[in-house]
């Protein structure tokens, strides 16, 4: 017993060092896995408050850019609107029971107050949280495409798992065919992502547009992602399909958060399958 105590006293700094390193290591391992409630995250009042203050200064320098993005989005939405009458005159629709026509998605707006794109596991922060009805695992997009998925929330702030994160995996498809793949990032260029598991039958070409696939409960179908930059073919499978994003991930301002109303229903159904 005495020997143990004298050993501890003799090596107390080394043991303290070891203890602190083990704690730090545990936090690190936690942050490398996707589905773990994390103790160390920036969605709290102190870090959120600091980032919000800093952002309120930086915002003014990008107002012009944000205006242009909004104009761009308006044009796109107006073009979509102008296509509607032609379709609806060809088939007359009578809605008898409005309860059957559920709204599938709703959008909430927020601002990115902290952007990150130069690490391997990148997280953003937005200035909306539980008070605005944000929950973990909701999609985050802007007018030019997918940004990420909400991760942890506090009362007023939310961290977003960026698509520039090794653990991120998003279902995408080609605009002009029904071939699906999953979007991931290899950690190199922050405007170029990779598509995995796309079938050889897809017959992709450089410049093809990629949109979200709608196979997940998080993103609706048809949100723009990017265009194919280049790809390799090896043994009759696609290797390294690179996608250039429409977004510039280093300059993101206002975003929308998507609430999916069918999420629970779909997940309940899928749970029955397992």
């Amino acid at each position, binding site marked *: 017993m005495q020997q143990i105590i004298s050993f501890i006293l003799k090596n*107390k700094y080394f043991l303290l*060092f070891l203890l602190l*390193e083990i*704690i*730090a290591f545990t936090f690190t391992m936690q*942050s490398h896995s996707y589905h773990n409630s*994390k103790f160390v*995250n920036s969605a709290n009042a102190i870090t959120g408050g600091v980032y919000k203050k800093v952002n309120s200064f930086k915002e003014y320098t990008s107002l012009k850019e944000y205006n242009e993005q909004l104009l761009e989005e308006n044009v796109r939405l107006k073009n979509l609107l102008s296509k509607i009458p032609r379709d609806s005159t060809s088939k007359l629709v009578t809605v008898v029971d409005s309860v059957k026509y559920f709204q599938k998605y709703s959008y909430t707006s927020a601002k990115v107050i902290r952007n990150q794109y130069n690490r*391997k596991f990148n*997280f953003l922060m937005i200035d909306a949280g539980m008070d605005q009805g944000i929950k973990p695992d909701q999609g985050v997009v802007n007018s030019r495409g997918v940004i990420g998925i909400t991760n942890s929330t506090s009362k007023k702030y939310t961290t977003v798992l960026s698509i520039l994160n090794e653990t991120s995996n998003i279902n995408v498809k080609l605009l002009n065919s029904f071939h699906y793949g999953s979007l991931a990032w290899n950690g190199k260029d922050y405007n170029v992502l990779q598509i995995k598991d796309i079938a050889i039958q897809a017959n992709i070409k450089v410049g093809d547009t990629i949109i979200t696939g709608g196979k997940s409960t998080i993103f609706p179908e048809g949100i723009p992602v990017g265009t194919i930059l280049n790809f390799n073919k090896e043994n009759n499978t696609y290797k390294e399909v690179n996608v250039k994003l429409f977004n510039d991930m280093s300059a993101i301002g206002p975003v929308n958060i998507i609430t999916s109303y069918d999420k629970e229903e779909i997940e309940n159904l899928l749970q029955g399958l397992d």
Partner: protein
Amino acid sequence: MNEIVKNSLLFIVLILVQVIILNNINFLGYINPFLYILFVIVFPLKKDRGLLLVLSFLLGLSIDFFLDSGGVNAAATVCIAYIRLPLIKALTRKSEIDFPVFKIIKLPFLKLLSFIAIITLTHHLVLFSLEYFKFAEILTILSRTILTSIFTIILIIFSLLLLNKNK
């Protein structure tokens, strides 16, 4: 100024400077210097190393909270806090009696530079190794370690000169 007040002020200022300014530099797309380890370098030498270890852990963890990086900064900072004293002893051959009057800036320049370089390289190597955590990425880890270290070392030397001019 009281030593405790001075060091707590330095602690907070370094976190804020790191989070607000230095993490947004992104030189060449990804190089951000880590000035906050200056705290470990200038912290007064004491026989009791426990306080520095705990403070370093808290400093690293605070940076981790801002960066959402788990515990990589905490692990790296604790690591350099642990090797600091043996390193100073090896470099200067000073005994424990000299500690209260010892000032890091009073070292000859070459010794000071090698001390800062070893501390910085160790910190960055641990940091990036834990962040990437894959043997296949060893080249990325090394190149990022060296490139970032150069900037951190330059910044630390300038800050040391600045801190000493004010007195």
